[in-house]
C-alpha cells in the first residue's frame, strides 16, 4: 500500500468513526473539546515519577471509549507518530538518572526507568484522548464549536477547505500511483520523464475543481465564513458531562486514588 493510500485510509477511518452514533457522539462538540483539553492538561501536569497515579486516568479513558463504542486498539497505530520523539527524549533518563527508587521482588528500579515509563504513558493517554475527540466529532461540528471559542472564522474556513482538498488530492494520488505502478511493473517510483506531468495533471484537475467549488460557494451565498447551520447548542447534559468530567479530573489530580486503593488492599 502506498503512503497516500495509507493516509487516505486513516482519514476515511476517522470520518467513518465520527459519523457513528453513541452518547458521546451526541454531546456538543465544544463540551467534548473542553473536556479533552482538561484531560490532557491533567495528564501532563503529573510529576515525572507519578506513573502509578496515571492509572485511574487510563480507566477513565477506557470507560469513555466503551461509551463511544470504539475499540481502544483503534488508536494505537497512531502511536508511531507519538512515541519516537517521546522516546528520543525519554530514553536517556534511565542512563542518566540511576538513583534507585524502589525494589520490586528484589529488582531495583531506578528513577530514570520510572520517569521514562511515565513519559510514555503520558504520551499514550494524550493520544487516546485526542483520538477519541476526533473519532466522535465531525470536523465541521468541531469547527463550529471552536468558532464559539472566538477562533477567527477565516482560519476555520481555511481549515475546512484545506481538509476537503487534502482528501481529494490524496485520493487521486493514491489511484494514480496504483495505475502507474501497474503499467510500469518492477519500476521503483515515477520515472524521470513523468515527474512533472504525474502530479501536475492531478493538481490542474484538482484546482479546476477547486475554482468551480469556490464559484459554487459564492453562488450559494458564501461570504467570508461558512455558516454553521447545524451547530448544536449546548444542552444541560453537555454541561453535566463537562462538570462531572472536570470534577473527576480534579479529584484524580489532587487525591492519590491508586495509593488509597493499594493501601486498602495491602492492609
Amino acid at each position: 500500500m502506498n503512503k497516500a493510500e495509507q493516509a487516505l485510509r486513516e482519514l476515511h477511518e476517522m470520518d467513518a468513526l465520527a459519523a457513528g452514533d453513541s452518547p458521546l457522539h451526541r454531546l456538543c462538540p465544544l463540551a467534548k473539546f473542553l473536556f479533552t483539553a482538561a484531560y490532557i492538561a491533567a495528564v501532563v501536569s503529573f510529576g515525572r515519577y507519578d506513573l502509578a497515579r496515571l492509572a485511574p486516568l487510563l480507566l477513565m479513558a477506557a470507560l469513555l471509549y466503551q461509551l463511544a463504542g470504539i475499540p481502544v486498539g483503534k488508536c494505537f497505530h497512531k502511536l508511531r507518530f507519538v512515541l519516537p520523539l517521546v522516546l528520543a527524549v525519554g530514553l536517556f533518563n534511565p542512563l542518566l538518572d540511576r538513583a534507585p527508587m524502589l525494589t520490586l521482588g528484589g529488582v531495583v528500579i531506578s528513577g530514570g526507568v520510572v520517569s521514562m515509563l511515565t513519559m510514555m504513558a503520558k504520551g499514550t493517554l494524550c493520544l487516546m484522548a485526542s483520538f477519541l475527540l476526533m473519532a466522535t466529532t465531525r470536523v465541521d461540528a468541531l469547527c463550529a464549536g471552536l468558532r464559539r471559542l472566538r477562533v477567527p472564522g477565516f482560519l476555520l474556513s481555511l481549515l475546512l477547505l484545506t481538509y476537503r482538498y487534502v482528501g481529494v488530492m490524496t485520493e487521486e494520488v493514491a489511484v494514480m500511483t496504483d495505475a502507474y505502478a501497474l503499467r510500469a511493473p518492477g519500476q521503483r517510483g515515477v520515472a524521470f520523464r513523468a515527474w512533472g506531468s504525474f502530479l501536475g495533471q492531478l493538481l490542474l484537475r484538482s484546482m479546476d475543481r477547486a475554482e468551480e467549488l469556490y464559484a459554487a460557494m459564492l453562488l450559494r451565498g458564501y461570504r467570508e465564513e461558512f455558516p454553521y447551520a447545524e451547530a448544536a447548542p449546548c444542552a444541560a447534559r453537555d454541561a453535566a458531562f463537562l462538570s462531572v468530567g472536570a470534577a473527576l479530573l480534579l479529584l484524580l489530580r489532587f487525591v492519590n486514588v491508586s495509593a488509597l486503593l493499594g493501601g486498602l488492599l495491602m492492609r
Partner: protein
Amino acid sequence: MHMADALLAPATAAAMYAASSVTAGISAHQLKKDDEPQKLPVMAVTSALVFAGQMINYTIPGTGSSGHLCGGMLLSALLGPQAGFLSMIVILTIQCLFFADGGLMALGANIWNMAFYGCFVGYYLIWRPILRGKGGLSTRARIILASILGCVVTLQLGAFSVVLETTLSGVTELPFGAFCALMQPIHLAIGLVEGAVTAAVLVFVYESRPALLRDVDGAGEGRRSLRATVAVLAVTAALVGGGLSLLASADPDGLEWALFGNEEAGYAANMGLDEERFGIESAAADRAAAIQESTSFLPDYAFADSDSAAGTTVSGLVGSAMVAGAAAAICLAGGFFRRKKNP
C-alpha cells in the same frame, strides 16, 4: 519535529499557545485588511500541496536518514508571511487532529517552532533582504541562496526551541548542552535538504511565472488569474511531490535516526545507548559514563532510609495495577458486547 503532549509541561504549552495565538490573530487581522476573499481557495490548495509534500521523506545523502519538507519558507515566498503562517497552522492542525502527528496541547509549541520561524523570521530577515538587496547576484541565485539559508536558519531555530521547551518542562534528564548537540547537527542536515527542495521549487516558479513570488522583479505587474496560479502551483506540486518522490524513502526520519542510530555507521555508540560500544567520545557520553560509575558503586544507597517511601510507592503500584486491570477488563467486556450486538 512535531512534539507530543508528554514532552511539555502545562505552563510551557500554555505560553506557546499564547504566543502562537497572538501571532495568528495579528496575521488574520492584517489579511482581513487586504480584503482578498479569493485568496482563501489559493491558500487552501497551497496548504494541501505542502501537506502532500510532507508525506514524502527526502533521503539525506550519505547518512541513511531522511527529512521532510518544512513548508514555512515555501508558503511565505508564495503567499507572504501572514497567509503562510495561517496556512501552516492549518496544516499542523490537520496533522495533529487526524494523524496524531504532534499533540493537541503541544500544537501551540509546534506552530511556533515550525510556522513562526519559517514564515516570519524566514521572510522578513532572510527572504526579503536577500531578494531586494543590491549586488551582482542574479535573481535565480538569490532565490537559491535565500531558500537554503532560510530553511537552515529557521530549522535551527525550531530545533533549538524544541530543546528549550522540553528542558524548561523538566521531562528529560539530558543536560541542555548535550540535547542541543544531539538536535542541532541533525536539523542542519535536514535544513540543507529542505532548502535544496524549496530552492528547486521556487526557481521553477520564478522561471515560469515570477509574478507569483514575493519581492521578485515583476511581482504585482498585471492581474494574475486564478487559473494561472493553478498552473504554476501544479508544476510546483509536480516538483515537490512527483519529482522528488524518487528520493523518498522508507527510512526513519531524523529524530528516530538520532535516537536509534545508524548501526552500520556506529551512531548508536555515539549516542551512548549501547553501553558495550561506548566508542565515540562526546561530552554527553562522558557525563553519562561518569554518572553511571558514581551510581553503580553505591549499590546500598537505595536501602538506607527509603523503606517507608518505597512502601507507599509499592502500594501506589498495586493500586494502579488494579485500576489498570479494571480498565482492561472493561475494554474486553465492551468488545464482547459489541461483537454480540453486531456479529
